[in-house]
């Protein structure tokens, strides 16, 4: 039996009369790369915010990293990492200053901070750039750095919200290698993306349409089920009936 790190049942979020997320239920396992797909406006971001402890569900229940999404948002925040679709480091601070800031936020001891910093910088080949302002780094580097900093405190789950927007395929490929490395270490990766080739890299994929999860399985099983050659086709078949658009 695989260990579950995210388990939600009938999770719903309403804003007034608008139901942004409509009774979604799924489990995510430890060390899994879980793709969370959906067109714009499908409710992905709202769902993810609930999982991150940023917003309370209207109804339903569930746990993230063993903590209740209804009551223990603050505890959840301590056990997850987060990297946003927009850039999430400070451009006017150096690489090392960013690392220290986030180490401070997650209360790493000075010793552990130093050790993790060296480890992270050498893995990225960034040792010589540690006193460079982040704003001066190329976008691909920044994103790798942002990912590494999001996992600095060794969270159980790391949430990536469209992490590879705007970079070239080679850099994206390198980025995914980092994700695999992290997953092999036992970190669960929960990722949203618009790139269907990236969906193929995920262990399992869920597709949201109009606030509901319409499909959830491995990429191979989904392709079989929808008699499709690629995830792109699967996505289009499922999303075709979408009533909501941005």
């Amino acid at each position, binding site marked *: 039996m695989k260990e579950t790190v995210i388990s939600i049942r009938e999770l719903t979020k309403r804003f007034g009369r608008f139901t942004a997320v409509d009774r979604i239920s799924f489990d995510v396992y430890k060390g899994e790369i879980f793709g969370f797909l959906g067109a714009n406006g499908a409710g992905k971001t709202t769902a993810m915010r609930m999982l*991150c402890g940023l917003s309370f569900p209207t109804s339903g229940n569930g746990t993230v990293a063993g903590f209740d999404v209804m009551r223990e948002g*603050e505890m959840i925040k301590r056990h997850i990492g*987060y990297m*946003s679709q927009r*850039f999430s480091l400070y*451009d006017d601070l150096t690489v090392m200053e960013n690392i220290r800031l*986030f180490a*401070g*936020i997650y209360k790493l001891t000075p010793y552990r901070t130093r050790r993790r910093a060296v480890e992270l910088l050498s893995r990225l080949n960034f040792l010589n750039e540690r006193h460079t302002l982040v704003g001066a780094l190329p976008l691909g580097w920044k994103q790798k750095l942002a990912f590494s900093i999001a996992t600095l405190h060794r969270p159980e789950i790391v949430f990536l919200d469209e992490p590879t927007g705007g970079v070239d395929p080679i850099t994206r490929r390198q980025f995914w290698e980092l994700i695999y490395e992290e997953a092999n270490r036992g970190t669960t990766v929960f990722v949203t993306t618009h790139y269907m080739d990236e969906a193929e890299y995920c262990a399992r994929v869920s597709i949201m349409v109009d606030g509901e999860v319409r499909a959830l399985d491995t990429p191979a099983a989904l392709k079989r089920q929808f008699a499709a050659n690629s995830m792109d086709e699967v996505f289009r078949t499922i999303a075709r009936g979408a009533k909501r658009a941005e």
Partner: protein
Amino acid sequence: MNTNIAHFIRKESLHILRDKRTLLIVLLQPAVMLLLFGFAISTEVNDVRVAAVAPHRTEGVTEAIDRVAHNPNFTFYGYIRQNEIDDVLRRGDVTAVVVFADDYDRAMIQAAQGQTVTPPIQIVVDASNTNIAGTASAYLQNILLGTASAQSLFETRLLYNPQMKSAYNFVPGIMGIIFILVCAMMTSVSIVREKEVGTMEVLLVSPVRPTKIILAKMIPYFAISCVTLAIILLISRFVLDIPMSGGIGGIVFVSLVYLALALALGLLISTFARTQIAAWMVSAVVMLMPMIMLSGMLFPIENLPLVLQPLTCAVPARWYISVMRKMMIEGLPLDAVLLELSVLCFMLLAVLGLAFKKFNDKLE
């Protein structure tokens, strides 16, 4: 608990120190504004040229003209004829013309004996600059009256600012404005910048409490504002020679309350502004304009339309400027401004409470 707030304060300080241009503006702007208003943009009336029309240059007339000519604020242009008045004024040769009546001397004596006479002097002023016209004519009247024996009727003494230096009047006003600019504008823009760039989201997902994020933002800006305050007070004291006899401790204390209030206003702005431009606009236009108009900085509150007068009570700068006038210029001690101080404290608590509430609501 306090380790990560220290990290945040360091981060905010780095943001401020790295942005050299803004820092320079924040530190130099008060000095420049003070010196500009204190010296350059002066409402004092200097070197006003005055001509005289006198059918008979009697003893009384020459004595009066001598007084005017010897006054450092006026330059005597010369005697002209009645029909030249319009010309010299239009050409801008003079700003004012003093016209003496035929029977000036006799009228002055009669007036001194308490008889009613037709006014023996007429002052014609070029009012294209109302400010100069007003001050010059009032000043001329004073000087001319001084020549007559009627001087015993009034005795005017100008207290607190006997030389009528305009810098005195402007310094409290500038302080009221500068702190709003530095504190409110800079904090709101810096918080909104994080919302815009996306880093705020990351901070909110982290286990740091929002209150701490905000507090850590306010502390470095508060520190910078204290430096600004010190600069302003030093310039006021040693360059502009403002007495500040109300006690430096009290002046600093009230200023710190006002600084905190300005920071809280910036925080409040940042809760509803979505972009840096919006935050900037709100601080500059929505807040600064009424502050300049309604704070009594430029226009005395008593001169405002009656409808607007109650509105001025809602403008924090009004209270602060009033305190600074009293303490820096009139030399009143702290307990003479308790009303203003309590209004400022009340505003501080109200704005701070509202801002924190709105900030926390936004998270949901």
